[in-house]
């Protein structure tokens, strides 16, 4: 808060701090409540849809057989993602947990990408497209660079940063497009970013079949990057190489997360970005170039999406595949659940990492379609979007107003509802 810490009476600052504290606590409470509500609705959905499936054994109720047991599904979803820690022979470095943390890593990047734009007051639904473009840029750049850079340790140290940088530049430039269109032509970024997701798929598959297809593969994919250009695992304490997960990558993601939090809290760019999100008019009055800020925040957001694509290539597959999973859309859910707070993104990404990895366990251990996870993701977003629902339940059954700040100023009028609402402050 560079320009925010002027001469401010201590009393008001304490009050503000308490307000922020209350809204953070409320946010966490709403996110947790939304998660439970989504799991509950998803469970009912699983149970009911079981009556349409065919199975040999199920629960018979009044002549209808319900094939799916929601408890078993959630057991597989949440504990399967950790490698079944309650069953015998569990080891910390198991394959399922590796997949969970691999997804967590990618989702931290994608979630940060969405969060940066949201905080600037822009809804970037295009992280998916930026990830697709950035990933292809990474794969192509690394394959080309590997032909002129010595292999082995030098190759690893040089190629990985080049690959990540290529992904960031590719995604950043692709993210800049809707930023420019918004700033200079007033084109709504929600629609343009969604359209650019479709266009990204079209352009990259055309480029792939035109130039970059691996001639030795029947699947649509680029030439594999050399093994030494993949993110190395940590010896002794890390997960084994075949698990496609590296603690180094997770460490980088967490470092980047802290870096973005620092950017928001301690730099003038971050301050201007947040002000543009909360009060564009005030930001403009304070000398922020609104158009340039729009382009800059969309570029940064796109670069983070591109980095997610880079790690998808460098850590998971070792090449770019035409069929890119919907990490970018899950990034929206991660950011929304985290209240667009960079540090919250880490926890939310871990949760969605569990869901993604757990969908594999559902697929192998039960007959329930793994697409359940996609539905749960949407439900979580839906419930987080309606905090009023939980406030109503809260006031009706618990009979407290958790949102009411402690009143320290005696006779003054109670705070306006809009200032109490943390949503209004964070992602207007």
């Amino acid at each position, binding site marked *: 808060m560079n320009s925010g810490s002027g001469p401010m009476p201590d009393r008001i600052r304490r009050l503000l701090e308490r307000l922020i504290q209350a809204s953070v606590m409320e946010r966490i409470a709403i996110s947790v409540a939304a998660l439970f509500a989504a799991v509950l609705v998803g469970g009912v959905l699983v149970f009911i*849809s079981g009556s349409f499936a065919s199975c040999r054994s199920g629960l018979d109720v009044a002549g209808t057989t319900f094939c799916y047991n929601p408890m078993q599904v959630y057991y597989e979803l949440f504990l399967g993602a950790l490698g079944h820690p309650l069953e015998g022979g569990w080891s910390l470095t198991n394959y399922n947990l590796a997949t969970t943390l691999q997804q967590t890593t990618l989702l931290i990047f994608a979630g940060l990408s969405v969060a940066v734009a949201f905080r600037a007051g822009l809804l970037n639904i295009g992280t998916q497209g930026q990830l697709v473009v950035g990933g292809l840029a990474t794969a192509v750049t690394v394959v080309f660079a590997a032909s002129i850079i010595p292999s082995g340790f030098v190759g690893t140290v040089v190629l990985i940063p080049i690959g990540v940088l290529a992904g960031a530049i590719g995604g950043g430039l692709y993210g800049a497009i809707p930023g420019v269109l918004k700033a200079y032509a007033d084109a*709504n970024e*929600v629609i343009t970013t969604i359209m650019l997701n*479709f266009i990204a798929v*079209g352009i990259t598959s055309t480029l792939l079949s035109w130039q970059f297809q691996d001639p030795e593969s029947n699947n649509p994919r680029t030439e594999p990057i050399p093994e030494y250009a993949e993110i190395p695992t940590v010896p002794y304490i890390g997960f084994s190489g075949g698990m496609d997960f590296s603690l180094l990558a997770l460490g980088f993601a967490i470092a980047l997360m802290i870096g973005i939090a620092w950017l928001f809290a301690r730099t003038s760019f971050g301050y201007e970005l947040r002000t543009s999100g909360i009060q564009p008019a005030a930001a403009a009055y304070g000398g922020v170039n609104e158009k340039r800020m729009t382009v800059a925040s969309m570029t940064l957001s796109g670069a983070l999406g591109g980095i997610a694509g880079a790690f998808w290539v460098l850590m998971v597959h070792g090449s770019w595949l035409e069929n890119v999973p919907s990490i970018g859309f899950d990034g929206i859910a991660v950011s929304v659940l985290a209240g667009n707070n960079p540090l919250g993104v880490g926890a939310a990404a871990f949760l969605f990492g569990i869901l993604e990895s757990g969908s594999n366990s559902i697929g192998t251990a039960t007959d329930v379609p793994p*697409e359940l996870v996609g539905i749960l*993701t949407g439900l979580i977003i839906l419930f987080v*979007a309606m905090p009023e629902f939980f406030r109503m339940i809260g006031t009706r059954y618990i009979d407290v107003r958790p949102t009411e700040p402690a009143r320290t100023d005696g006779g003054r009028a109670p705070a306006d509802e809009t200032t109490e609402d943390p949503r209004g402050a964070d992602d207007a």
Partner: protein
Amino acid sequence: MRKRLGRARDTLAANPTATAVGIFGLVLLFLVATPASWQTSTLRLAVPIALAAIGGIFAEKSGVINIGIEGLLIVSAFSSIIAVHRLGDGGATMGLSNLWWGLLIGVLVSVVVALVFAVVCIDFKADQIIAGLAIWLISLGLAPFVSRIVFGSPNTAGISRFGNVTIPGLSELPILGYLLFDTEPQVYLMLAGALGGWFLLTRTTFGRWVVASGENPKALDTAGVDVRKVRYAAVLLSGVFAGLGGAGFALGTLGTFAGGGDTAINGRGFIAIATYLLANYHPVGALLGSFLFAGLNSLQTALQSAGYAIPTELIRTLPHMSVIVVLVLVGRTRLPDAAGEHYESGED
């Protein structure tokens, strides 16, 4: 250059008669100059875009931005196919063809999802854009989820589609006859929907309530009309229109529903939003606008059959690219004043 299209549109709106004559002339010119196969496929591909756009107009005019119409198209499309499959492909139930039952069920499912969206946005004051995105993402998961349970694959089985309904006499008309009076039921629904939507919005009391609820809800409330009920009705109506569009498209054009990835709807709901922004919330304008995007969409098959070796993946994104071009040229449209805002009766 910027906003020139928007300004041109305002000029056109100020001279409705001249505009109507001009558009009619342009359409005739197109009909004479282009191949018939391209025209019929354009008309069919316009169905989901036009009907979803008309529905979206009602919701947004009432003050609720329904960005979830993509989701409504998806759920109505796949549920109509599943309903026909369950009832029996090619058969009839209680004297009504199963295809029509499928259409009804598709619309019903879409209305139910629209109801959820309405409750979330109107009563629980959710952020409309985020809630709309959630409806879309839930539908993206729901389509392959249900398909896998029923068919064991993210794609549904195929059904036999709607056939042409020929109106005797009128179908013999030159130029327009074969196009408008010898076509599939969903195309008739689209044409009727555009005219009906226009009539409802501009010529009835309900239409005036919808507009007032989006522009000045307080005035409507003062006049003794329940803003909440008007908004509910408008959002449910968007569910009806989008349901007709999705189910009509599935039963008349697709005949099967691919639920993987972006699904067979492939962003048409979002294209519909751009369509009504381009048409400045005019239902008949939205119908004409949908021809632009559907025409580009059907260019794909036209170019391929003409033997041009243009990459399919790139041609497929032509409608999406043109949406961006349109948004840039139109610039910011004037949203209804209270769009995206909650209204509480008795609030000061």
